């Protein structure tokens, strides 16, 4: 019952957006959003691929898609790798003060990216990262969540495993490659999906760090085409698709690792 209500609340906006994306702009403006599919599917979606926007230079939705993919994949990949390595170091090495380091990492969870925008911006600008993909990606990588997640998993591994491996002649690198990585695969998939969505949905930071229209992402680009237009709705649908597809591909790993110990 609760699940049913939840489902309705979650699905309704999706249905609304998809249905509306198949109506003409005038229908939407005169009659509001539509619950039933219309007949403008081909026109609206076609319009997106012939559309160009920009003030200083030109950007097409395909270009935005490319930007979005580059940024989201970079964020996802680097977040996964970095948090895995950080957690590996924290759990398996005898570092002086490693608990303090870990808590320091964890505390950053408390501060949203927005709270350190000014400092991050000045650092990024002094590194010459303004108007680059790297400038959008790098500050998003300080992701304590992934580190925490991997740490919790590594702590469940019996310490005898690393001892057995060291007797088997596996040093820290081999242990990581042969034992830890294969065991972390499904969890890494989950973090990848989450980080991908974070990277994909970024709005405020890309807005600050990039002024070139050529760096527009899909999420930012929606505004060019008009939120309340048919093509705008179509673009919203397109924007939602990649994370959705990714989740579908990764779903088995994703749920396995987030729910129980697989």
């Amino acid at each position: 019952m609760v699940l049913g209500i939840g489902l309705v609340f979650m699905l309704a906006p999706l249905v609304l957006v998809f249905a509306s994306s198949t109506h003409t702009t005038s229908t939407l403006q005169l009659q509001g959003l539509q619950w039933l599919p219309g007949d403008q599917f081909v026109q609206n979606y076609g319009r997106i691929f012939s559309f160009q926007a920009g003030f200083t230079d030109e950007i097409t939705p395909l270009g935005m898609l490319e930007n979005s993919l580059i940024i989201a994949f970079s964020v996802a990949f680097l977040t996964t790798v970095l948090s895995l390595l950080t957690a590996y170091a924290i759990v398996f090495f005898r570092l002086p003060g490693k608990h303090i380091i870990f808590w320091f990492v964890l505390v950053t969870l408390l501060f949203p990216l927005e709270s350190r925008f000014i400092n991050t911006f000045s650092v990024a600008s002094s590194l010459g990262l303004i108007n680059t993909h790297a400038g959008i990606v790098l500050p998003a990588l300080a992701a304590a969540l992934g580190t925490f997640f991997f740490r919790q998993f590594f702590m469940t591994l019996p310490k005898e495993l690393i001892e057995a491996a060291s007797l088997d002649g596996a040093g820290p690198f081999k242990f990581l490659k042969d034992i830890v990585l294969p065991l972390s695969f499904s969890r890494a998939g989950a973090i990848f999906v989450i980080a991908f969505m974070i990277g994909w949905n970024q709005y405020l930071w890309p807005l600050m760090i990039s002024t070139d229209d050529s760096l527009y992402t899909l999420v930012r680009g929606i505004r060019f085409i008009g939120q309340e237009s048919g093509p705008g709705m179509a673009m919203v649908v397109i924007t939602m698709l990649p994370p959705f597809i990714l989740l579908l591909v990764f779903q088995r790993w994703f749920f396995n690792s987030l729910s129980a110990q697989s």
Partner: protein
Amino acid sequence: MSKVQLTNVRKTYPNGAEAVRGVDMEIESGEFIVFVGPSGCGKSTLLRMVAGLESVTSGQVLIDDRLINDVSPAERDVAMVFQNYALYPHMTVRGNMSYGLKNRGLPKAEIDQKVTEAAKMLRIGDFLDRQPSQLSGGQRQRVAMGRAIVREPKVFLFDEPLSNLDAKLRVQMRIEIKRLQRRMNVTSIYVTHDQTEAMTLADRLAVVNDGKIEQMGSPIDLYNNPATLFVASFIGSPQVNLLPATFDGQHLISGDLKLSGFGDLPTSTELVLGIRPDELRLDESGPFLLRVDIVEQHGSDNLIYGGVLGAMNDGDQETEFCFKTSQDMLPDLDSTLKLGFNDERAMVFNKVTGERLR
């Protein structure tokens, strides 16, 4: 075929806790040594120092006369079997067994041959392509042993390998470990808190207490001639009967009891008389009057537990004896039995130092 030598080995943890306080030991090639002791006595730490998983604070660890204090675990050429097996969960049985060999860069054909051979010896040949999660506890234990065997190490180290198995399997595996060790003739060190395992497996037994070796010798020697009160009470099941007493120059006095047949003992200190349950016998002229509390029937023999009337008490607790006798001996509860003992086999300890006096 290698000998292991420990010279004044100590382990102090950074927090100041002393786990091992000066151990000297020489283990001959092919010997099966068991470290036995209560939990927290330092026996596992000692084993792990030989393995290289624990650093040595001071002293020397030698394998075949080579100092290995600072040699990495992999290069010590030792193999270890862990209590929780520590199998790599994502690898097949074959993968688990061949991982160490692969890291050594052995050719694939040779690895295959060794794995197949070891698997045959351990009767896990049918499981080679399964994951550990698909195996039973006993099978996992076999794989863990297989992983150790294929490496043909100089020394086998066992850290309570049977503690996670059920009783029946434990006995089976115990026999199998002994058989394997005999057959391969590899120097082995085995840590356990189970004294039956210790007695049955060991060529020589080291009783560890509080970071020190209390006594080392063949199991039967330790049983018959314990050097200390601790060894006497730790080795032997059921436990040795202990009776607090003092010596008046001619007799051992314990409460109202006066025991003759003892001489040459100090009169000034508190003593403990130790009598094994199977050294007691029914004897109308014997000194002990046992009030029967519990009769345990173990099948071939019965264990009769009860308080010793008139004996000196240790604190509030009544001194209790266990009397091992044949299965047809079934006294009523609360009846009394007159018991004598073999005074030649009785042991006397200094209660304070634990030292054996007789």
